[in-house]
């Protein structure tokens, strides 16, 4: 059993008739993902990559038994499609697109919480469970089955860590992109709790970035709830201090959001800090992770 994607998963692709949607559907199918259909309103009845296209999510659910959805929908249409998907009873949603207004994200987040939907993104590479499938854009060749969980704010950095590990035959139980927006649909501690509970995961890597407080909150979760070893890397040490944008954010966050604050919080919580991605190999050896 993998995290989030397992043998019961049946994936639909929203925006399947678009260029990215159709290309990524092909990659997902090649990776062995159980994709069962796609949605583009007004294009129901056509076929893309051998899959049926439906006008509405409700119809797709009815015809295919879909229970998971990955979005390649233009940013302006994501909110509408999200509501439609939740209303159709889908409980796992991955929002790949970027540039979605924060107000829309806040609405989606509240709706997902109210309806018991697990959603990732926006601006996420998605989820990849080696050997089971992937929802999103992660390049499958870089991943290998195994027992390390990876959660990353950045798509490409998740590939980097998986690639480094896979080269040394250290496989992954699941790789999850949490999304890189100021507000995301599922917070980092909630994703961590999935890995902590997963029997197929022995250890977890958090790949964070400057900004926000997700990593600081994750540190609290690690200190209080986690028993599995955690390694953490925070990108952006040399990022120039952003042009200061008023005080409100700074007041709310306090000193949080810098690489230093995140590193300190994670280290105090008992996570192993990686100063550079390649150090993940030493951590794996030291923790006897294979």
């Amino acid at each position: 059993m993998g995290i989030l994607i397992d043998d019961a998963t049946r994936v639909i692709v929203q925006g399947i008739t678009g260029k990215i949607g159709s290309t990524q559907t092909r990659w997902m199918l090649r990776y062995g993902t159980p994709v069962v259909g796609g949605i583009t309103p007004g294009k129901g009845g056509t076929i893309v990559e051998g899959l049926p296209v439906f006008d509405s999510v409700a119809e797709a659910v009815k015809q295919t038994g879909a229970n998971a959805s990955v979005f390649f929908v233009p940013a302006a249409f994501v909110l509408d499609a999200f509501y439609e998907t939740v209303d159709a009873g889908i409980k796992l949603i991955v929002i790949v697109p970027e540039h979605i207004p924060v107000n829309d994200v806040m609405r989606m987040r509240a709706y997902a919480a109210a309806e018991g939907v697990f959603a990732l993104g926006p601006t996420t590479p998605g989820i990849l469970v080696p050997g089971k499938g992937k929802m999103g854009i992660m390049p499958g060749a870089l991943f290998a089955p195994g027992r390390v969980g990876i959660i990353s704010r950045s798509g490409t950095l998740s590939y980097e860590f998986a690639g480094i590990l896979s080269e040394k035959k250290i496989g992954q139980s699941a790789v999850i992109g949490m999304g890189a927006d100021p507000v995301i649909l599922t917070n980092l501690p909630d994703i961590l709790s999935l890995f902590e509970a997963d029997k197929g995961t022995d250890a977890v890597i958090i790949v964070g970035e400057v900004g926000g407080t997700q990593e600081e909150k994750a540190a609290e979760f690690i200190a209080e709830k986690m028993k599995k070893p955690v390694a953490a890397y925070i990108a952006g040490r040399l990022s120039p201090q952003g042009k200061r944008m008023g005080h409100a954010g700074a007041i709310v966050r306090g000193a949080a959001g810098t690489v230093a604050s995140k590193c300190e919080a994670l280290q105090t919580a008992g996570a192993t800090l990686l100063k550079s991605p390649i150090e993940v190999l030493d951590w794996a050896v030291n923790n006897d992770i294979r």
Partner: protein
Amino acid sequence: MRLHEHEGLDIFESAGIPVPRRGVAGNTDDALIIAGEIGYPVVLKAQVLVGGRGLAGGIQTVTTPEELEDAAGKLFSAEIKGLPVRKLLVCEKADIHSELYMGITIDGFTGRPVIVVSKEGGVHIEETARIAPDKVISFYCDPAFGFYPYQARMLLRRLGIVERLLAICADVLVRLYRAFVQYEALIAEINPLVILKTGYQGGLLAIDSVIEIDNSALNRVKLPLPEMIERIENPLERKGREIGVTYVDLGGDIGIISSGAGLGMATMDIIGERLRPANFLETGGGITEELLYKCMELVMMKIDLRAIFINVYGGINPIHEGARGVVRYIKEHNVTIPIVAKALGNHQEETWEILRAGGVHVVTEAPTEIAVARLFELVGAR
């Protein structure tokens, strides 16, 4: 998109928040005319998008036309924290009794707007929040519900504000919230909201604004303002925006092209161990041959560049197409500085082949550190 102070004050005014009489001047003559209409003393405020403007000399009170001419002349020829002063806001001088701070931002972790008020307005508000957090009241608002006067009164009562002032301050805070929502702001701040010695303007005056609009919402927010792109002072950063990538100009001499912000930052951090990055360039998910050609062009605009490091993944991006753009630029412009590339993921073999044919040093191992070590070798960094 961060708005200028005067643009923010216009938004406040349309939202019904009391603001000072004012005008925007592009030169000293205009400033004199505006000041004449307002009446002396007036305050001159450099319109630069940077914090700590006041401490850097960007705000001057003048009491006569002569003083104004002198001060405006100096401001227009000065730089505030490295930024040129193109416009001055000329403002009436408020007769300050006391100051409040009101700010709204979005808290990423809760996904809610946070409303912050304090009696300690002005430039020291963050310091106050740190050393005396009880003097700063925060409220996490439910955006589906909204923010209503009774909630504003509850917050303001906790600052000890009572009677008539309570109602009018609550009114301003609710209007600030409405503007925050209407303009899809990430930050909306009145700092300070001045309580005047006289009852003029209802006794309150918002004398500075900070507003940042959500870039992702710019196309649906109706704003009579210059485009985002015209606000970018740095010519390279402006060109980056024109071609659709994120470009941050840095002080060094190693060009970086990455697909992905996290990877870009990590690459910068790794290179920064021994060399100085010239830039941070992140392509986003829209790589084409043409885009990477333009990225090369943009990175090469930096003079005295010693090398370029390319770090890309083929996930959503067709990196083999991007590679063609890189190589075409190299050939057309006869680029001679070393270019190191790490490119993994979908279409990786094809990408390597194209890049190698163009003279790029391709590293095929996963760790960026190994590719950067190759860069260090090539430019002789120890």
